């Protein structure tokens, strides 16, 4: 079986500034990829392009046999890509249940897991999303994403703001999803979280890929050390 997701030479420009500049990678079904790099290296922009929030200025994205780089977000969601956000984007005036209902009502695929049970949200279903704390809101973002039954999940800075136990439980959950065949791209600052999830990372800098491989080799790579890890991390 070939690549499930094939990103080819995508770029995204803001004014004269290239946030993503000719990035290419492939991903198999059920594979987890870590996307790391310093602030402003283009990780989140990459996620935004993949999820249709930005149209790419160049390059192509092929997913499950379809070219998706010109699709609007709602179609991308319909064909099975979903995501979470660095800064949670819940529907603040709706309850947790209603938040998930919005996604369920428009879902085109059967969810692999029941998002409410899977993420243990039963206790807060009636609360307004606006009253939740950040960790809860991030979980709710994930629940909405899972409700659409995604085949590719883009996870943007999910561990930031979670305590160690929560992070660990989240790791288990993501691994479980990947066993179910969900491909996952994890954008993350917290390298231990990435490390627990996958061997394969792409290190980005200034919109470009500077390294691909496992995290340990990344820490030994001179270029990576120079721009990001500062020599002694991991």
């Amino acid at each position, binding site marked *: 079986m070939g690549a499930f997701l094939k990103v080819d030479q995508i770029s995204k420009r803001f004014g004269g500034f290239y946030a993503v500049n000719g990035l290419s990678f492939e991903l198999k079904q059920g594979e987890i990829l870590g996307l790391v790099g310093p602030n402003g290296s283009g990780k989140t922009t990459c996620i935004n392009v993949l999820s249709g929030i930005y149209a790419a200025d160049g390059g192509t994205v092929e997913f499950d046999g379809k070219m998706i780089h010109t699709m609007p*977000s709602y179609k991308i969601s319909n064909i099975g890509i979903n995501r979470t956000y660095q800064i949670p984007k819940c529907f603040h005036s709706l309850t947790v249940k209603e938040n998930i209902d*919005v996604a369920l009502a428009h879902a085109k695929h059967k969810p692999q897991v029941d998002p409410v049970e899977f993420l*243990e949200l039963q206790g807060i279903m009636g609360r307004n999303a606006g009253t939740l704390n950040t960790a809860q809101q991030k979980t709710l973002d994930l629940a909405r994403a899972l409700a659409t039954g995604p085949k590719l999940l883009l996870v943007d800075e999910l561990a930031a703001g979670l305590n160690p136990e929560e992070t660990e439980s989240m790791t288990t959950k993501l691994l479980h999803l990947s066993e179910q065949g969900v491909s996952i791209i994890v954008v993350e600052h917290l390298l231990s979280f990435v490390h627990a999830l996958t061997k394969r990372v792409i290190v980005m800098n200034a919109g470009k890929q500077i390294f691909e491989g496992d995290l340990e080799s990344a820490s030994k790579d001179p270029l990576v050390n120079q721009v990001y890890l500062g020599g002694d991390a991991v």
Partner: protein
Amino acid sequence: MRKQTTIDLSISLVLVLAFVALPHFYSNLTILFMMAMYMVLSQGVNLLYGLTGYMPFGYVGFFGAGAYGFSIALQHLHFPIVLALIFGVLFTSLVGVILSPLLRLSGAYFAIGNLATSQVIYGIVANSHLQGITGGGDGVDISQYFNQTASYYVMLAVLLVVMVGIIWVKRSSFGLSLQAMRDDSVSVAMSGVNVVRNRMLVWLASAAIAGLCGAIYAWFISFFYPSSVFDVSIGIFAIVFMLFGGQGTIFGPVIGTIILYGIYNVIGVSTPQYFQLAYGVLIVILVMFLPNGVLSLFKRGRRAHGRVLESRPNF
């Protein structure tokens, strides 16, 4: 949920039946007509602002377009009344489609842009070059079709339809997605909602409601000037009534209209300045002290209660 819907539908039916019965007890049909009309108009605003967050400051543009579409269909195309009403609505929807690029604007930009478009429509209609079609500044006279009773009942039918429509929208997943859209248009799209299409649908529905009101109003009074059907305050009244009652609620616009339009008629008739003053002061007080409307007073009590029950620790 189901029970609540039945209750809401029953209240709406009682409301419309009350309006059917009222002319037997109260002779001023114009006030009753206007009250029903403003209920429909402020529901139209409610649909757009209450559910999607767009504030149609120039809502009257659609109202006037409906009035003129209707009159032109009667005068020049010699349509029967019902067809002319439909023509008015279609004409307004067309205007809505033409103006739809405005939806790309947000917040105050949209409100001001919308206000400007209503003035442009007014300027075009009232322009002397179009005297042959619109009658220009001399106004429109369709008094041979004058029938206040019939137009009143048609307005009530529209009121009923709009009420049922609002109740459906509020209860449906479509309505839920609109509310979600207002909170966050990015993540609602990621939930699979076609934001652009939904927005357009609501915009056109809201425009059509205003156009229909304008058309029936034209029929009801049967003689009018461009300045009277493009009076910005018609749209603003609708907005204020909606805000006063409670935005995004089913009965807010109805309650707002009954209370405020009632008050206006008590104070309003004699001197326009005092009326304007009172109405200005009222708006200021409303925004300062009741930004979420009268209905929020009841809800606040309920919500606070709910929060206590649900605030057990989670996670």
